[in-house]
Structure formats: C-alpha cells, structure tokens
C-alpha cells in the first residue's frame, strides 16, 4: 500500500513526490552511500515512490566491503603479543573466516574501540611498551583523518603507532560496477560526505564514458527526492553529473584533505568483500611511511572456507534486496549477524531491518522475526 506518512515526510517532500508521480517515468537508481540507504529507509521512501521507480543500494558501507581476509589479518595482528589494536566500533562484530574482533577480544586479544584515529595516537603515547595498530577502514571521508593522524605521530615523535590500511576509494568501485555485464541501473545517487573530500569532478567519467546520469546528493528526504527527480528528467540520452548538495560539495573537493591523504597513501588494487578485486580502489601506505605499516607483518591466516550462505556480494552490486536473502531477519539480525551488511548500522541489510516498519511488513523475508 502506498500512503504518505505525514510525520516522516514533510510537506516539501510530498510536493516532490507528486512531481515525480506526474512525470510517469520509471527507473532504477542506486544510492551508493550507506547514509543515504539509512535516510531512505528512515523516511520510508521506497513504498511511497511511483511503482516504476526502484531504489537499490550499492557498496556504500566501508565495513560491509572489507574482505574476510582483511578481517582475518586484523584479528591475527590483534593477537600478536605486545599489540593493542584500535578500531571503530562498527568493525567489532564483522565476521571473518573463523572469528570476529569481538570474539578475539573476548579470548584475550587487546582490542580497543575508538571514535577517532587520534585516540590511537593518545593510547600509543600512554603505552610506549606496546605497538598500537589502528585498523584503517573507510572511504575518502575517513582516509584523510587516518593520514592526518600518521603525520601527527611523526610530528610528535610517537614511534609505536601502526596502521592497517584497508581504505577503499569510491570512484574506481563505481567504474567497476558500471562495467559489469548485468549492471542494470539508470542512474547514481552519489554520496555527500565522500564528495566533500573528493569533489564532484571525481565522477565526471560516469556520464562521459558510460552515459550514466549522476546526482551528488545531500541527506535530507527532500535532497534524495530532488536527486530522483533530476535523474528521471535527465535520462541516459542527456546523462550528466549534477550536484544537488552544492551547499557542501565543491567541484574540486577539499584540496587540503586530499593533499594530506596523498602524502601518506597511494592507490592500490583492493579486494571488495563479496565482489572481486578492483584496480586502484584501495589505499596503500607509501614507502616513506613503511615503518608505520602493520600490513606487512608476518601473520598466520586461517584457510578461507566456503561461504556461510550470506548474499552480501549480490546485495552490494544491487542484484538482490535484503528481503531476497533467506537469512534476513531470521538467522541474520544485528544482534547475530551472518554477514557484514547486517553489522554496521549503515549496512544495507541492517538499514532495512532497523526501519522495517517503514518499508512495509509485506517485504520481509520468509521466517522474519520482527520481535520488536
């Protein structure tokens, strides 16, 4: 049933919904940012849109795209004697091949949750006898903060801070996605805060090389609806790159942040969980900072095992929706996640689960246990 919930959808948004309806157009659009996925679910937008308009979620959550092998490496590093591993809280429950950081921590590894990489620097200063390893996970929004922390460590002469860099870059991932044979999306709703750093120019190749309509979008319901409206009006024949979020995003991004990032990191190929290795989509620590790189440490890693049946890979390319996974809401919940898409609050499965009411109970998978 389509209805407009007055509480969640403000008047301006209702007007935009009417405009979208009036176009009588259809299209499938991918939101590439986990925060957009959350905002869409929160507003209950999907059931409100005209039937021909579908929003699917892309690989927009850095936690979800971190490869099993990288989680395994982080756990192995955390278990080394004399190491304190520091991480954002979202990473704790992500399942690796055998364990998660949470289970490693419960069995004695020293793992500390931090809000900022700068806290790792403070821990390193307090614990000169330990090697403090920060688990670097995130897109271009986060990587400059990690690079800044490494520069700060050098400036302050703190020599026991290390970094595992599993950072990922958004534009190369989009290039890989649009190049897939079965990629069937009519436009991108591009991330706001990643774009604050990299600038809208970073996506210029999408309309030019792939005739892919793109709108860089803010986080309000009205922003997202504006983006859908613009994408519908554009169509592939007039594909271009528009910036709806111009109040925060400049074409060139934040040059200072980009400079800090490139002082410390250089691009490298990276494995995306559930997808494949994407050329130039990761950030490796430059030779000059090799002494701070914990990624080169010798560790023993578990043998990769068969998949546990999680369909995150298909979710991340927009091939299926969370409800299409038989585990969704039953065996797999935020408390007991089978796959990473259910771990982070920005994961596609978690967003759908968290805001299930607004997406309509009919769409939940078999065996769903709402229980709330």
């Amino acid at each position, binding site marked *: 049933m389509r209805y407009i919930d007055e509480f969640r959808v403000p008047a301006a948004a209702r007007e935009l919904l009417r405009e979208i309806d009036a176009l009588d157009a259809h299209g499938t659009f991918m939101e590439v*940012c*986990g*925060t957009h996925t*959350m*905002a869409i679910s*929160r507003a209950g937008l999907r059931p409100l849109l005209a039937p021909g308009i579908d929003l699917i979620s892309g690989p*927009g*959550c*850095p*936690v979800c795209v971190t490869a099993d092998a990288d989680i395994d490496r982080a756990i192995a590093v955390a278990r080394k004697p004399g190491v304190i591993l520091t991480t*954002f*809280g*979202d990473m*704790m429950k992500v399942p690796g091949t055998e364990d998660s950081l949470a289970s490693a921590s419960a069995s004695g590894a020293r793992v500390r*949750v931090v*809000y*900022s*990489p*700068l*806290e790792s620097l403070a821990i390193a200063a307090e614990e000169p006898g330990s090697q403090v390893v920060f688990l670097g*996970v*995130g*897109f271009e*929004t*986060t990587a*400059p*903060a*990690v690079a*800044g922390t490494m*520069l*700060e460590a050098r400036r302050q002469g703190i020599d026991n801070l290390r970094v595992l860099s599993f950072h990922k870059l958004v534009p190369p991932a989009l290039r890989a996605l649009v190049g897939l044979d079965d990629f069937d999306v009519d436009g991108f709703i591009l*991330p706001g*805060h*990643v774009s*604050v*750093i990299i600038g809208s120019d970073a996506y210029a190749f999408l309309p030019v090389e792939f005739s892919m309509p793109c709108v860089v979008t*803010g*986080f*309000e319901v009205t922003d997202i609806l504006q983006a859908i409206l613009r994408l519908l009006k554009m169509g592939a024949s007039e594909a271009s790159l528009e910036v709806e979020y111009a*109040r*925060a995003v400049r074409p060139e991004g*934040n040059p*200072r*942040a980009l400079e*800090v990032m490139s002082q410390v990191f250089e691009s490298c190929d990276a494995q995306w969980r559930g997808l494949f290795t994407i050329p130039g989509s990761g950030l490796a620590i430059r030779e000059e900072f090799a002494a701070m790189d914990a990624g080169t440490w010798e560790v023993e890693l578990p043998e990769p095992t068969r998949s546990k049946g999680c369909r995150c890979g298909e979710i991340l390319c927009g091939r299926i929706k969370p409800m299409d996974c038989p585990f969704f809401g039953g065996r797999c919940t*935020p*408390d007991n996640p089978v796959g990473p898409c259910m771990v*982070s*609050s*920005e994961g596609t499965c*978690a967003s759908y689960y*968290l*805001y299930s009411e607004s997406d309509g109970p009919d769409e939940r998978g078999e065996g769903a246990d709402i229980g709330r």
Partner: protein
Amino acid sequence: MCLAIPAIVIELDEPNLAVIEIGGVRKQVSLMLVDDVVVGDYVLVHAGFAIDKVDEAEAQKTMDLLQELARLEQEAGFDEIH
C-alpha cells in the same frame, strides 16, 4: 560510517585544534584538514577531524536527522555512529 556530523566551533586551541560542541557535548577535534576556521563557524566533523566548513542552516538540518538515527541505533543496540 561516512557520515560527518556538523558542530559549532567554541574555542581554538594550539596547535591546529578546536573545541567543538555537538548536541551539548564538547569535544576536541583537529583542524589539520581545513583552512581559516574561526570561533562560531560550523564544521563537518568526522572521526575527530573537521573535514570542511558548512553553513548553519545545513548544520541544523543534519543535526535533526542524526538525533533520530542516534535514538534508533541505541534502541537497536548499535555502537556509536562514526
């Protein structure tokens, strides 16, 4: 995780640090990634760093969204948003 939270700059500290306020809570952040910040500016804060300046109206809108997310996440037992 790529969410940056708007906050007002309360005080500038050396070297390149600022005290900001988010929802009544004060925190110290690094200004290493932004230029020319003065007291009273709004900045987008991510992982302990100001990543850009932003205007007040934009800051307010995002704050409203975040408050609801924080409440829902707490109910669902998620960790702090980054």
